[in-house]
């Protein structure tokens, strides 16, 4: 972490400190709506960071991360609704179950040499399989959904993740900060360098004596576990869970866009990406409203168009370019 701080020059440090300060102070001036948008952004920073570890650093393209969000959210919600076990405790089985699924996928894929497109498909297949399974799972409410009841007297029980918008905003901020920290730490750890070596050339990495299977397993375990924590947050923030909403492929796609747009394999890429994409979606709602063309689907069409334009113009992400033009790193080292 200190290495990350020291790698930045004065301007970089100032900018980062300013961002943290603005985010901490935001509730003083922001409206409830703005706060909810910021909460969403920070949530996407966190899960984007979790996915970034696996794709950006270890180079494993997972298109099924909604699986871990859904499992984390559902396990915590089921334990709360049916057994009264609070998320401060149920986060343990939530993470464990999601990581177990991650381990199963990773073991199958990495043992049997399933790579690239095939690996991506395997992750989608697992997510879809689980979605349909939850559609028929009685304890999870099936396709009809599972609802976390709103109880006035419980507001303020922060250990049970019951709180108002302000509480969830700071919780999302903490999650995002932890996500960035974990990425920063891992990217400078031995494991992070092993991932980079595997991403660039797995054969060469193995020739150097790196246990690629182990390193990739660690990537999927860390990534799925982290994502499940995001799922717990998501479940208790929204209070409603539907299989079609939690496990859907569009969810997986939504989650990976911020790191791709911001810049894969960078620490701040997912942050920048989330700060671009989520407000873009909100602006599109306002814009189409204002133009009077608020048909269902208009917003999504613009969204799709933006994606195509961004990936055509800046395929390596926005952040590396910004960082270069702002000149945030120390020189001459």
């Amino acid at each position, binding site marked *: 972490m200190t290495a990350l701080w020291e790698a930045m020059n004065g301007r970089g440090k100032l900018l980062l400190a300013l961002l943290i300060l603005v985010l901490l102070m935001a509730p003083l001036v922001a409206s409830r709506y703005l706060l909810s948008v910021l909460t969403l952004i920070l949530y996407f920073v966190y899960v984007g960071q979790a996915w970034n570890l696996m*794709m950006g650093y270890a180079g494993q*393209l997972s*298109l099924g991360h909604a699986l871990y969000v859904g499992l984390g959210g559902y396990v915590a919600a089921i334990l709360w609704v049916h057994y009264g076990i609070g998320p401060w405790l149920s986060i343990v089985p939530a993470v464990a179950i999601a990581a177990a699924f991650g381990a199963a996928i990773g073991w*199958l894929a990495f043992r*049997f*040499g*399933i790579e*690239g*497109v*095939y690996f*991506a*498909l*395997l992750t*989608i*297949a*697992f997510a*879809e*399989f689980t979605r*349909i*399974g939850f*559609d*028929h799972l009685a304890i999870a409410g099936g396709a009809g959904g599972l609802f976390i009841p709103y109880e006035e007297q419980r507001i303020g029980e922060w250990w049970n993740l019951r709180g108002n918008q302000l509480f969830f905003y700071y919780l999302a901020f903490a999650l995002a900060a932890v996500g960035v920290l974990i990425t920063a730490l891992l990217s400078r750890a031995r494991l992070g360098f092993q991932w980079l070596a595997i991403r660039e050339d797995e054969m060469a990495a193995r020739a150097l004596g790196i246990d690629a299977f182990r390193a990739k397993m660690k990537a999927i375990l860390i990534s799925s576990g982290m994502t499940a924590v995001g799922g717990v947050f998501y479940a208790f923030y929204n209070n409603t869970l539907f299989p079609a909403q939690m496990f859907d*492929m*569009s969810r997986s*796609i939504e989650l990976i*866009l911020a790191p*791709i747009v911001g810049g*894969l394999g960078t620490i701040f890429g997912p942050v920048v990406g989330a700060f671009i994409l989520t407000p873009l979606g909100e602006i599109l709602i306002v814009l189409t409203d204002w133009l009077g063309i608020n*048909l*269902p*689907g*208009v917003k*999504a*069409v613009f*969204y*799709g*168009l*933006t*994606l*195509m334009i*961004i*990936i*055509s113009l800046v*395929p390596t992400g926005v952040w590396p370019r910004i960082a270069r033009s702002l000149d945030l790193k120390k020189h001459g080292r």
Partner: protein
Amino acid sequence: MWSIYLNVVLQGVLTGLVYGLMALGLSVIFGVVRVVNFAHGEFAVIAMYAAFLLFKAVGLDPLIAMAPIALAFFAAGFVLQHALINSFVGRPEHEQFILLVGLAIIITNGLLMIFGPDAQPAQLPYAFDSYLIGTMIIDKVRVYAAIAAVAVSTALFVFFRHTRTGTAIRACADNLTGAAVVGLNVKQLYALTFGLGLACVGAAGALMVTIADAAPGLGPAYTLLAFTIVIIGGLGSMSGALVGGVLIGVSEALAGFVFAPSMKSMFSFALLIAVLVLRPHGLMGKKRT
């Protein structure tokens, strides 16, 4: 008792052949251009709406409308490859993925804006006719659609095996550098291939209207279906796509009959996972290094 199962299996085979044709388009595009068309199912849905509109407006039977739709899709694919996809050939998978997912989102929501979210049944005059073979009842539309799907697939096989252009395209797939060295216009052939792939999905979409109702939300499901089939059969293998299509068709039909229709794709995904683990390159796929 057994004749009921046989009946279900046979219906599944017929549907599966149409699925196979759709997947064939995906397989051809990947096998040659090396781009995974993540908007494949969405193109199928466009074709479904095109066939639906042609039937409603001028009463054109989808089995006939298949031809002009496939032709239009060929042209669209040709242009699309030149204008957009060619610059993404050889780039990392996730970049191609984002490009085509963007396209898929635009298609699905464009259709949603134009046609609304509800399913549109075409209501063909012979939709409920059936053939009676012994104790088995076989839907007429499925028989026609399956025959048409086999015909189109056969035409494509013949094209790739026995024409100069088809051979040239196969050369690009086998050895890109070699193909360029002997003077083949690779970009043109890629555009041709993408056109052919879309023609397959156009034809399949038109046929699909006879057995399913068009709805914008079908796109992602069909994309997944095509992918499942192609991976089971082996990415890039033409016969594999048809075999995979039939397998999935039968598995869907049986699962829908024995368990619940809503659970049918669960069995497809289970089949996919099993194939990926046991034969990572598909049933008929060649192992690549």
